[in-house]
């Protein structure tokens, strides 16, 4: 059995008196694509925020580790350290740096894997120059990966929506993660773009061996590409398993469709 790269145990998150997440358990194994689904307001994005350090979970454990490394508990550490450890994310409402070019956006992603500081910047010494060149090269290759190389010098805010989503993925990839968290990557995309996206995500897993945890509403996409699915409703985990298991689970059907008399 492969050890999990992400293991979340009994995580709870309270906002004032409201419990947004209630004892959620979730794990992602190396090389897996795992989907987190659930109706609107189920707490999916809150879950992402909890494991990436934007919120500090009220209780529970978030343990991560590159496969082979010793796992580490990361509750409440700063978001930038989470990224440094190797978990990178995208945002539901795209958060690119709007007035920087596509290439620069990806270059920012390499920040935590590069070192040159103030002295390097000012002296522009050999080490800094070499590193700068590597940053550009690597970022450009990542743009090629998401098929955005022709937009390298276009401002991020001028890209169409679907391309912005792909740019966010490239930017997250630049942080050299072992686990990629995608928050509704297909939202606002047309069917053609969604298919491209699916191929991109599968490619990332297969070529780079990066595990993926994604939140997604497009069921067709989720069912066809995920190894396992976790279902959240009102902050509770109501089901998990393979796509077949989950899609047959009455609790899931109930959460999505509601019981006849409830919803009218």
């Amino acid at each position, binding site marked *: 059995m492969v050890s999990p790269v992400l293991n979340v145990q009994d995580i709870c998150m309270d906002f004032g008196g409201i419990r947004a997440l209630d004892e959620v358990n979730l794990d992602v194994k190396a090389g897996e694509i795992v989907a987190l689904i659930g109706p609107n307001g189920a707490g999916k994005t809150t879950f992402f925020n909890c494991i990436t350090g934007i919120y500090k979970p009220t209780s529970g454990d978030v343990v991560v580790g590159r496969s082979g490394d010793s796992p580490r508990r990361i509750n409440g550490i700063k978001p930038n350290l989470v990224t440094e450890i190797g978990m990178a*994310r995208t945002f539901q409402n795209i958060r*690119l740096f709007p007035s920087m070019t596509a*290439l620069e956006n990806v270059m920012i992603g390499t*920040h935590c894997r590069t070192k040159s500081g103030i002295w390097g910047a000012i002296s522009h010494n050999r080490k800094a120059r070499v590193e700068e060149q590597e940053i*550009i090269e690597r970022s450009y290759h990542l743009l090629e990966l998401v098929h955005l190389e022709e937009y390298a010098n276009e401002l991020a805010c001028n890209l169409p929506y679907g391309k912005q989503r792909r740019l966010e993925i490239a930017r997250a990839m*630049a942080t050299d993660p072992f686990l990629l968290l995608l928050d509704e990557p297909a939202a606002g995309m047309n069917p053609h773009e969604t298919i491209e996206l699916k191929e991109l995500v599968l490619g990332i897993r297969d070529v780079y061996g990066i595990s993926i945890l994604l939140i997604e509403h497009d069921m067709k996409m989720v069912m066809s590409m995920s190894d396992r699915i976790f279902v959240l409703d009102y902050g509770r985990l109501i089901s998990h398993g393979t796509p077949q298991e989950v899609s047959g689970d009455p609790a899931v059907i109930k959460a999505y469709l509601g019981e006849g008399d409830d919803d009218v």
Partner: protein
Amino acid sequence: MNNNIKADKGKRPLAFFSAGCDSAAHALRRSVLVALWFMFLTFPIMVIKVDTVNKTIDWRWMNLLWIGIGSFVLSFVWRWLLERKELQKDQVSTEGPVERLLTSASSIPAAKWSLLAIVGIAALVFPHLAGMYQTNIMISCLTYVALGLGLNIVVGLAGLLDLGYVAFYAVGAYAYALMNMHFQIGFWTMLPLGAVLGAICGILLGFPVLRLRGDYLAIVTLGFGEIIRLVLENWGEVTMGPSGISGIDRPMLFGHKFGVFDSITFMYYIMLGLMILTIFFVNRLQNSRIGRAWLALREDEIACQAMGIDRTKTKLMAFALGATWAGMAGVVFAAKTTFINPASFTFWESAIILSVVVIGGMGSVRGVILGALVLILLPEYLRAFSEFRMLIFGATMVLVMVFRPQGLIRAKRKVYTYMGRKTAGAEHG
């Protein structure tokens, strides 16, 4: 009021006259109303001047007339500018006339280099052609360039509004004055020490306050700046209080002491050197890994952290570097004037430096240089209007924010290109 612009985007004759209005008559009526409103608004303060002791009243009716005419005309300009801004919103980028000139000049290498050479030679021979008085003004202008570029790192690049920047300037100036008075430490020793001291103060202040949101940071730095000034004023035993410290040594060159006239020329070259050094540093910094992190931080803090950038550390770096330049400029200031007192380090000084950065163009090195030249030299040479200096600065800050947030010259970014195995950064407009 005058800015409920209707989205009427058709080009019409008399577009300027009737901007933002249905018809010329409508425009006229609105401008008359605006004029009446401003006449009402400014009536007590502009017209009446009372003397409650002698119970006399001075009525200045002419002012009312000027306000009426002025606001009538300006309301057309205001609406026209607002409409133009609406129209230009969709365009990707529009270059102002100055920018266009600079872009076209710098696109031809020969023109670029000859332009730089002319500016360089002019700067070098300036103190020999102009008199002592002019040179003195130029020194203070160059000081503002250095201060502006330093503050530009903090405000323009990292997007942290620092309203107490002058505190670091004061630290540098007082450090040199005190060290010189008590220990006879010379200018050249103190210049790097002033820089280090500035940086240390920047870190000490920055560490607790930098996790605050933008507008709180502005107020805390303002408060800190005032605290420093008040301490300088009241801690008489050390700082000599409001009367200040005089007889500060001018800089020497390898033990050679200059006369008053020569030492001003020397000071000019020191300042010129410091400015060139600053331009070089800021340019290098903004196109580096750190510079990119600052820009990203300015745009979106949360995304920035999610990309693995340590928010506090990156902000602290910008804050400390900004303070470094203020510290150095402070040492130079003390050496130039040979006399300092707390009155030189009021909030106004911070406000002037901030307006240099804002009006020149936040994040733009060329903009800040031009901003300092315009803002410092213009009031010096147009004496008649120097008392209106701060009034105009204030109004211009508002106007720049409303109509031209990028300032006189917008920031120019390095364009990174990838060319097969070989990569290079090229400068484009």
